[in-house]
């Protein structure tokens, strides 16, 4: 399976000295610099309110930074209007959310191929078939999301995130609503995609076990990156989080 990606010289996502201040003066991101190399799996951890969700939204172009620069697949997203940012997201980013966010009115197949349809791109049937088989929903394509289990819905959302061959997939607490077994399945799937397809994945989570599947984990607190661990072990991560809470 050919999964030609852009040359590895530029990072898939880069945040340079990014600060995000909310209207009430809360500093959600405080001078954050992060680089996500292509083909890597990055986990962002931290307690609630640490700024990890803001990091994801700014990095994905869903929100604009108060200061600093965000490069998405080599393109600076500052100064783009909402439509251009949407188009950039559509072309370069895949999203996976805690609440799946599939469109209830569409079938599984229609949900998965929606990004292509919206971009006016032709359907690469072999690629879609590969994805569908990969997430194990080959026999569920004509069902509506309501007829699937949570794990199945999240796997459909992952296939949708990948269908446009994005530069990076952002996953925001993708296992938050799943039981242990389904959560493990989803996390394994994400890691396999990184290993097999060289897909860049950014995972935001508070679960050390989930973060342990990543190549690298950032630990955030009060809008800053306070720790970086390569090939983290769940136990180490849990220790860091506990330390943060006590400190």
């Amino acid at each position, binding site marked *: 399976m050919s999964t030609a990606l852009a040359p590895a010289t530029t990072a898939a996502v880069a945040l340079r000295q990014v600060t995000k201040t909310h209207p009430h003066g809360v500093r959600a991101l405080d001078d954050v610099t992060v680089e996500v190399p292509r083909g890597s799996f990055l986990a962002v951890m931290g307690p609630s309110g640490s700024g990890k969700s803001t990091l994801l*939204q700014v990095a994905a172009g*869903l*929100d604009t930074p108060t200061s600093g620069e965000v490069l998405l697949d080599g393109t600076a997203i500052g100064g783009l209007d*909402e*439509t251009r940012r*949407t*188009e950039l*997201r*559509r*072309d370069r980013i895949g*999203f996976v*959310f805690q*609440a799946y*966010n*599939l*469109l*209830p*009115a*569409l079938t599984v197949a*229609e949900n998965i191929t*929606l*990004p292509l*349809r*919206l*971009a*006016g791109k032709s359907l690469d049937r072999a690629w879609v078939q590969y994805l569908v088989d990969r997430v194990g929903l080959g026999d569920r394509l004509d069902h*509506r*999301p*309501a007829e699937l289990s949570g794990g199945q819905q999240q796997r459909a959302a992952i296939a*949708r995130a990948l269908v*446009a061959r994005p530069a990076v997939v952002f996953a925001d607490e993708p296992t938050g609503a799943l039981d242990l077994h389904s959560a493990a399945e989803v996390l394994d799937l994400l890691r396999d995609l990184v290993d097999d397809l060289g897909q860049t994945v950014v995972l935001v989570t508070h679960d050390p076990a989930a973060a342990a599947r990543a190549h690298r984990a950032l630990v955030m607190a009060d809008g800053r990156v306070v720790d970086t661990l390569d090939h983290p072990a769940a136990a180490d991560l849990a220790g860091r989080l506990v330390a943060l809470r006590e400190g």
Partner: protein
Amino acid sequence: MFALALRLARTRLTASLAVLVAVLGGAAIVTGTGVLAESGLRSHLPVDRLAGAEVVVSADQTVQPSADLAVALPERGSVPAALADELAQLPGVQSVVPDVSFPAAVLDPAGDVVATTDPVTAGHGWSSVGLLDDPAVTGTPPTGPREVAVDTEMAAAAGVAPGDPVRVVLAGRTSDARVTAVVPAGAGVLVADDRAAQLAGQAGTVDLIGLQVDGDAEAVADAVGPLLPAGTIVSTGDARGDVALPEAAAARSLLVVLAGSLMGVPLLIVGFVVAGALAVSIGGQRRELALLRAVGTTPRQLRRLVAGQATVVAAVALVPGIAVGYLLAGQFRRLLVHVGVLPDALPLTVGPLPALAAAALLLGVVQVAARGAAWRTSREPVTQLLADSRTGPRTPSPGRHRAGLLLIAAAVPLSVPPLLVQSPIGAASTSLAGIVAAIGLALAGPLLLRRVTGGLARRLPAGTSAPAWLAVANLHGYALRSAGAVTTLAMAVVVALTYTFAQTTVIDATAEQTRAGTVADATITAPGLGGIPAGLVDDVQAVPGVEAVAPVSSTTVLWPMRLLGEEELSAGPALVLPPAGAGVLDLDVRDGDLADLTGATVAVGSGAAGARDVGVGDQVQLTLGDGAAVEARVVAVYGRELGFGSVVLSADLAAGHTTGGLADSLLVRTDGDPATDRALAGLTDRPGVTVSGGGVAGDRPAAPPEVWINLAVIGVLLGYLLLGIANALVAATAQRRGEIATLRLTGTTPRQVRTMMRREAALVSGAAVAAGVLVSAVPLALLGLGFLDRPWPSGPGWLLPATALVVIGIAFLAIELPTRSALRSPPADALASQG
């Protein structure tokens, strides 16, 4: 529970607002109608001319059917004159004033008629000054045939004072007289008592007897009661106003009839709009409700909570709504006065009853509708609910679909009456049939829409843009939600088409029958004189070139009918025609001959005759406009019932049973020679006489007044309906923030979202117009066949395009504005706030 309900209502502001507006408008409509009904039952005309007589004895001007509301009669009845002497003997009675009336008018020095409010009954005997509150008389009583007294208003207008000569027209005869006295305003033209009895043509009877009493009027009235013969009543206080002018009092009972006929359709629409708004509001809270169920709220408690929440909102809306209702009733009274069906003097009764009725009715509707809307959510297993509330669309139930199809089918027999009865009542069933079908459409809509959009989705060409494809997919996937929008808009189309066309078709069919049936080419009237003056018929007949002339009047007749084993009694208009009438009117006689209208005879419309199974030669029992029961022989059956009414009385039969006794108009057929027309026009140099081209039978308007009133009502109703629909649509669209945010996160540009929503608006409004037209087609076709012998109705051609434009405009605005607002917030925030 109440505090929780309040908080829930506040969190869904847009939806609560829709419920608020629906209840507010509904309360206004119900209260307004209620005020009209209460006024019809309880309002009294001002006592005016009878203010000086504390107790009044008069003929009972109402007919009481066995189980229905009393029917008020417009023509003056009479009481035996001998009763006056008997009443004078009663203790407490100071004086007794018998009163008669006759048509009277005063001419000013230029020979023009001095305008008065009611010339038909302006003439009275001198003793009637005793009825006045303020018997301030300047001058001496008139005696003999050449003396009159006039009231101050007339005296001022004619420029006369006691002692001056004046020309008067009394009971249709012009004469010169001398003014002996000026009496207070409103007293009319007074002559010596014996002459008044002569002019009124009443021997041994009077119109009414006024009693001036010492002390307690009620006590005297109680004493009077046992002395009265049957068909005679005694009135005191405000009730005296009703017996002064029977015609005006009869118009009052029209208010009750009107309120009754108004109630049906508006109530259906109020229920429809309120239920629609509540369905949207409760639909938007399914997630909260599911969570409430999950934490242990029982189905019953949940329904109570939802109903409580709706009741809070409704209660807030009721107060302004009821206030608006009272204002609306005032406006409506002005309209009724303007079209001439209600005397200006009749005030509205403003009491608390309509407000209480509106509050009870709307709170009832809200409770039922809210519980109904929450029924499914309250009954389903909690796990199912939580899954559903996250993923949205539900499958429409087949039972609901079948009930809807049944209602649509039931509309067909409901559309049939116009084929059988060509009357406004027959036409009214057309709009009812349309609305019933539209309600059926609302029930069957989701499944129908799912099928249609399913077919559409399969047939979409490969190159269809993503927004258009999404629009179809949304309508299909959210069939329940989309059908709500389609069917409410379709309801607006149905109401606009069936209600308006039913009225305009009756108007046009009536006008056509009147036109086709009138072979006269000139009409002569003398409204200022209280009727056609004596001798004018002979003078017109003598004009060379006049081929036929006939005096024509309109009156009221009650013709009982057995309907479903019960006696139906409703007053209907009737023409009064002499045998010569056959020469000026072509009533499309099917059997018999109008020339036989002499003695106790009538001609009847074929529809009315068929319903009562009578024909030429049969005897029928009628109650005339003054309450007299008569038996008459049918001498003709005619077809043009809509244009001329169901009954034609012979002039002989009606004589003595109409107020004033003079004919309303003369219909004249000429040889068409301009010289004849000139000669006829020359008659206008007689005082008070007007000649107009063409013929109008009696003073009948082109269409019954209720038709015009209905047209006014539809304006109010449509405005309410459209407002309710727009609100519900805005609320429903505002609830799609989460869906829009998800689309944007999936890569839909704001522009694509807007395009998708516009496509949806186009599909929704297109489907609504198509469904509305389809559902209205059968009732309107049958209406056309019944009234015009062609399978389409008559009315303004712009109605359909205008309705379609309004519906499309509302759909676009109500979807576009909330969409724009949803697009303004960042998609991630929108999703986060969805919970």
